């Protein structure tokens, strides 16, 4: 069972209180973008064995969206942070590096 701490409530929310929202940090490519960029935005997703970034909603709690960094192999959670973050904050990256030295995910490391 996955437990994620909602950054808004501070509640350690059980998976059944949450709604999964797919991959985090998707970059929107709009008018003027190439077909490849738009296809990437719509369809191309990471499917890592290890460090991953996801969107979650505290659906049965405060109702807010947030982002989570976790490991898809061990279900270890490195941290959660507000949905408004354009990239993983420094303290989250640091926490991942401490556990998974040399990790990369899309353009982040």
């Amino acid at each position: 069972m996955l437990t994620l701490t909602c950054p808004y409530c501070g509640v350690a929310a059980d998976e059944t209180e949450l709604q999964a929202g797919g991959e985090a940090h998707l970059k929107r490519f709009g008018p003027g973008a190439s077909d490849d960029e738009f296809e990437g935005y719509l369809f191309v997703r990471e499917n890592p064995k290890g460090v991953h970034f996801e969107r979650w909603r505290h659906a049965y709690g405060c109702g807010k969206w947030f982002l989570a960094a976790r490991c898809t192999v061990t279900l270890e959670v490195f941290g959660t942070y507000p949905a408004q973050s354009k990239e993983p904050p420094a303290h989250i990256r640091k926490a991942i590096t401490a556990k998974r030295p040399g990790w990369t995910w899309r353009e982040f490391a």
Partner: protein
Amino acid sequence: MSEPVSALMGRVAAGAVTVRDEGLAGMITLRGDLATAKLRTACKHATGLALPAPGKITGNAAKGLAWMSPDELLVLVPHAGAGAVADQMAQTLAGTHHLAANVSDARALISVAGPHAREVLAKVSPVDMHPGSFAAGDFRRSRIGQVAGAFWIDADEVIRVICFRSQADYVFTLLAKSAEDGAVGFLG
């Protein structure tokens, strides 16, 4: 005029832990910037209470303020005057981005009281009901069985559960069954 009635019409499931329909309760959904003086004033006028901290409730079912999210409070007032209170809050908040909606008739209020009341909830929700984790003044929005619900516990260990009116029968039946099945003995 038709008489307002609660969804559960005063149902009671008596036992070691008694589950009881608390009848009509006034509830106002208040959304806005919780940091503003105007909003604090509106809440003070409505209930006489200070704003609760995140995850907390101040007051009680008759006059209370419960923290729902970073931009939402649930205002608890007597049922009869809830519409007028909501209107007055909207007046106080005029000119600021807000919502003050009387949702009283869309909700139900149920109490769970007795020696293993905590376990009755623990069996049907993911909330850690241990006294060290959930104490008087704490307020949780969570899941109750298959539906959304919110609850808090008072100093007398009485738990009050809020759910949607349309799901009141489900929540009451679930809580009554959980109570009837007896104590697990983990939380005492």
